[in-house]
């Protein structure tokens, strides 16, 4: 696999949407290519940031307003003279039926719906570094009020299995954030060189999590990271030589 191919596939890879053999190729390339790893990391951070956006409930009056506007347009259309209705039918063959405003709303609906669904599946690799930074509250306002979240129907066992992996990742991430805070508090009292080695050791283990395939390998990498941080949090001198 080339870097160019990976660039085209990285989002689908992180979302767990690639066939297994293609995903394996991506994973293999990411193991050996630091530049693409960095790219994947950036995408994963962006995705995580989107996932962590709070769910925004639409105001109850929104759909009433939209319905009222649509109704008014339909009534106005029905009351137009016959020649204007004929002209409108002819013109509809040249342009989308929806008004630009309605089109924009639809696009927003699709985009936000997809983000929510992906957030619930959470199958991809997540960025680990600087967990504390990600704990910063996400913005609570969005420029366009979204429609209700689309509820997925017909979810399959494979989707649920992916959900399970995602939930496990989420729990490990939360634990890692707590342990990092405890371990860093310990490390603050260490000599600078040892604290630096500790930071490097943590980073190496985080990279191992990112590189691991979902399932057993990923969970083992998480255990390796959290076990290491627990030992540090309990005051053990864990930094490598």
């Amino acid at each position, binding site marked *: 696999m080339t870097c160019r191919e990976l660039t085209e596939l990285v989002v689908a890879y992180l979302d767990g949407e690639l066939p297994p053999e293609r995903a394996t190729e991506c994973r293999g390339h990411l193991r050996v290519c630091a530049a693409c790893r960095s790219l994947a990391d950036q995408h994963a951070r962006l995705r995580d940031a989107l996932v962590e956006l709070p769910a925004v409930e639409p105001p109850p009056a929104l759909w009433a307003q939209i319905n009222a506007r649509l109704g008014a347009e339909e009534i106005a259309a029905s009351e137009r003279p016959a020649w204007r209705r004929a002209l409108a039918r002819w013109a509809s063959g040249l342009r989308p039926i929806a008004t630009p405003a309605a089109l924009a709303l639809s696009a927003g609906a699709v985009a936000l719906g997809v983000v929510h669904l992906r957030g619930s599946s959470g199958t991809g690799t997540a960025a680990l570094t600087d967990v504390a930074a990600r704990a910063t509250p996400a913005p609570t306002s969005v420029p366009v009020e979204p429609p209700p979240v689309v509820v997925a129907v017909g979810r399959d*066992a494979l989707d*649920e*299995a992916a959900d*399970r992996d995602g939930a496990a990742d989420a729990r490990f991430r939360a634990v890692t954030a707590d342990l990092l805070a*405890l371990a860093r508090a310990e490390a603050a009292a260490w000599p600078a060189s040892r604290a630096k080695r500790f930071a490097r050791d943590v980073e190496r283990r985080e990279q191992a999590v990112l590189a691991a395939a979902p399932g057993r390998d990923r969970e083992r990498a998480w255990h390796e990271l959290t076990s290491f941080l*627990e030992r540090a949090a309990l005051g053990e001198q864990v930094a490598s030589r």
Partner: protein
Amino acid sequence: MTAAGAMTAARWLAVVGLALGALGGPARADDGTDDDGDGAVVEHAQLVIAPGARPIGAVSVDNPLGDVTIVGYDGDSVSVETVKHAPDARTLERLRVTVVPAPDGAVRLSTAVLARGDRPPVALASVRIDVTVRVPHAVAVSGRVVAGRLAVSNLDAGAELDASAGPISVRNVAGAVSARSLAGSQRFEEVFGSLDSHAIDGDLAFDTVRGARLRAQAYAGRVDGRRVASREVVITTVDGDVALEATTQAGGRLSVASVRGDVAVTLAGEPQARVRVRAGGTLRAPGASPGEDGWSELGFGAQRQAAAVRVSSRFGDVSFGLLQ
């Protein structure tokens, strides 16, 4: 692969192929009757893998769809028994068990749900594969479950075990054992060898553990230990409580520490130990008198070969005593 290796592999695959050919097809539960009224289908299958040119040395079982039971026995072949549950025959076809015997004597078994294709979606809770494997005593095993139960027993060459939400139980096992779980509990009885156990939210329980080392770590789970006599014992938790009854070894080390949990340690026998204890909360240790650094030092028995014992909780209570 060499020609000899290829021949060996072919022989192995032939054995598996023959055994697979003998497997029964899907059968209705209770001889065709629906036991719970939902038309569920159950398939039982058995497979025996005989050793090739080399004895079977390692067995790995990865079953994200149900329970795994691995039992050691006095024999040289590996027998696999699977029980598949599905809501209907079409869904049953999606449940696959793959057994791959390698020429080097390793056997790998894994299960999976195939992609649905044009079939209707199925809920994960409605399908299940339980796997029971009998292996020679001396085989090194590794097992993984997700939400199912993982149980291993009667083994002499250790085990490497992983679970997400399912419980792990280990009984009568010698050799190095390592176990990891996210939310599943872990229970170890009669383990004779180094033991490494790590859980995030699961509880850890140890009964009759001996060996060079016991390292047990739980983030939020509780740790209970009885009759622990490993030479080096290190137990840590972040939020979970610890209750340990242990016997120290001459020149050994026992360290129990928690960040926020309560810790209770009792030494059995007639210990020869130098003990240091410290509590962020209440300290209960006869004769303990905390120094300026918060640590109390106690001595028991002759100190020449004394074990080093250290018991602490940063924010929780600590109690330490001798078993009377």
